[in-house]
């Protein structure tokens, strides 16, 4: 026969349980602080991520598909050289004219991105007279408000920085690939060298030092508009972009809340 549980033991046990439950939110908050502030982000000392809100937007009509942005990104961020790893890339859309009598408003849609558009684009195989229209679309991390990649990471290695960047802590990522599967935009890859998930960081090491991301720096047509929503400058390019254009985002139906916006985007772009 086991000795009966005394009132003191019972109260002690209940008190311990309550204490444990109450400590949980504190532990969670502490963990968030650690993840958001103290993890390795390549930011310089003194940079306060709570005082910035970075954003990138695109004017599709300005992009000429030169590929300088892709090349700059690869070089700046040591992205693996192979043709299947990109933090940012360019897609070319070619929409054919509809066949006569088809009753369609537009014909077949052809999309390509040879080497991510890094070397520019070869001439289209579709004869010029058969093309209804053609345009280029730069792609990178959509900086989602409700990032599915962050949601599914089993260890919290990928996180929403307070300044709007979505980052990966390479020293913490276990390389499971769940975030890559969860990203609807195909913006992530598992690095063959480090075996961890990689993605666009908006060139975090640059923007936290007052510079622009490499892709923005080299874009010859200013198709990429980058700025800090918390610290707008005079004639702020981001404010101007939203004032002058009707904008859209990629796959809005998924509820990921992409912050990266596109001006003059065709419905065929996914």
């Amino acid at each position, binding site marked *: 026969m086991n000795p009966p549980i005394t009132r003191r033991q019972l109260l002690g046990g209940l008190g311990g349980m309550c204490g444990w439950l109450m400590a949980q939110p504190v532990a969670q908050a502490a963990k968030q602080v650690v993840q958001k502030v103290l993890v390795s982000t390549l930011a310089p000392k003194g940079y306060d991520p709570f005082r910035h809100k970075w954003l990138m937007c695109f004017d599709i009509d300005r992009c000429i598909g030169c590929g300088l942005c892709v090349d700059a990104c690869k070089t700046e961020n040591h992205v693996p050289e192979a043709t299947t790893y990109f933090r940012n890339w360019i897609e070319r859309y070619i929409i054919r004219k509809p066949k006569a009598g088809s009753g369609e408003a537009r014909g077949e849609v052809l999309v390509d991105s040879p080497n991510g558009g890094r070397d520019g684009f070869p001439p289209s195989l579709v004869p010029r007279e058969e093309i209804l229209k053609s345009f280029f679309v730069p792609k990178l991390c959509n900086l989602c408000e409700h990032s599915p990649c962050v949601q599914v990471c*089993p260890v919290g290695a990928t996180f929403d920085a307070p300044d709007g960047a979505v980052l990966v802590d390479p020293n913490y990522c276990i*390389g499971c690939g769940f975030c890559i599967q969860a990203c609807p935009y195909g913006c992530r890859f598992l690095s063959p060298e480090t075996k961890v998930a990689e993605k666009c960081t908006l060139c975090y090491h640059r923007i936290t030092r007052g510079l622009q991301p490499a892709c923005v720096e080299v874009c010859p047509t200013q198709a990429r508009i980058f700025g800090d929503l918390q610290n707008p400058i005079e004639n702020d390019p981001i404010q101007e972009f939203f004032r002058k254009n009707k904008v859209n985002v990629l796959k809005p139906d998924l509820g990921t809340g992409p912050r990266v916006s596109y001006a003059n985007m065709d419905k065929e772009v996914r």
Partner: protein
Amino acid sequence: MNLLLATAQAHTVMPIDGYVYPNEQNFLWSVLIVVYPYVTGLVAGAFIMASLVRVFKVKALEPAYRLALLTALAFLICAPLPLLLHLGHPERCLEVMMTPHFTSPMAMFGFVYAWYIMAVLLLELWFDYRRDLVMWSQQVKGPRGLLYGLMTVGVDDLSPRALRLDEKMCDAITIIGVPSAFLLHGYVGFIFGSVKANPWWGNVLMPVIFIFSAIVSGMALCVALYYFINWVRRQAVNDECVDEMGMFLFYALLVDASVEGLDWLHRLYSAEESIYILKQLAAGKLFYSLLIGQVLLGTLLPLLMLGSTQLFRRQIPMWIRRRFYLVSSLLIVCGVLAMRWNVVIGGQLFSKSLRGFTTYKMELHGQEGWPIAAALMILPFIILYVLMKLFLRPDQPTHEQVHGHQAAPAAGG
């Protein structure tokens, strides 16, 4: 180093049909991730089979009760291995347990797994085997006897009261175990079902489909193993037992097929943007594994065979029924493997841009090669063999066989 990388890429970068996002050309979740839900499903199914005896008091299945439990254990031990081997940094795997991210379905696996193996399966096995362990530890000499003695953890009380408590504990654990088995595999389904970026996976029915396909596959495996073990031991199969197993297998398969059919019906009727590429996927890249392997051979044919044994039991002689059960169970086991393949590999064969397909070719070498996957499929059977050598020996009578029913029954062997 560069040469090595280039070689690795040559294996993973596959021909493209249409347009896929550049990063999607690297095929991410390989055959190892096919093995993972398959093995986990077999665990859940085998446990449900055992619970039919415990919770639902299906006496005819008693001869397969312990076999089902040991099968569940053997497969459960191997369940996390494919995930572990797949990780880019396996040495960091404990971070999932130490600093879990609670919004991630994958983070919960460690906890669900630990709960299932520690609080359900091992406990149930211990309470079920305790009286036998006590008896064998006294009868068997040498290291095996020592092992039995150690496994009793010193609890050698065989009084009727203690035996009754064992039975009660077993029943209680099984009752907790059934929802736990659902949780274990429903959760695996949720890993895929929660990926809204992928229309092939992101589906509210996915956990349900995974649960029922798991039950079906685990039951079918138990049936096949039951036949195999009796064949090896030159014993006759218990006809009543196989008839009963066949019946449960039929109804489980019927529900499974209905749920999967409902999924397709819903997809076709609602005809969302992705339906065009999914139809192309099913009729093209997955034609053999989905329509032939999973639907025709893995579902319809077994349904026909098992259904006929239910509808025309009196007209079909026992020797034909036995063969029907065996062939159906083997077909189902392969069909569910095909289903896992179709989910995991199929979901990565098309681009999230919905504009093209890539190709997957199993590797031979490396961490994710097919020999590793095959080894992970064989390993549970080796573990099961060892477990059976220890706990399911035909030359080693159980406590119940020696002393008869002293407490509640349900301890066949």
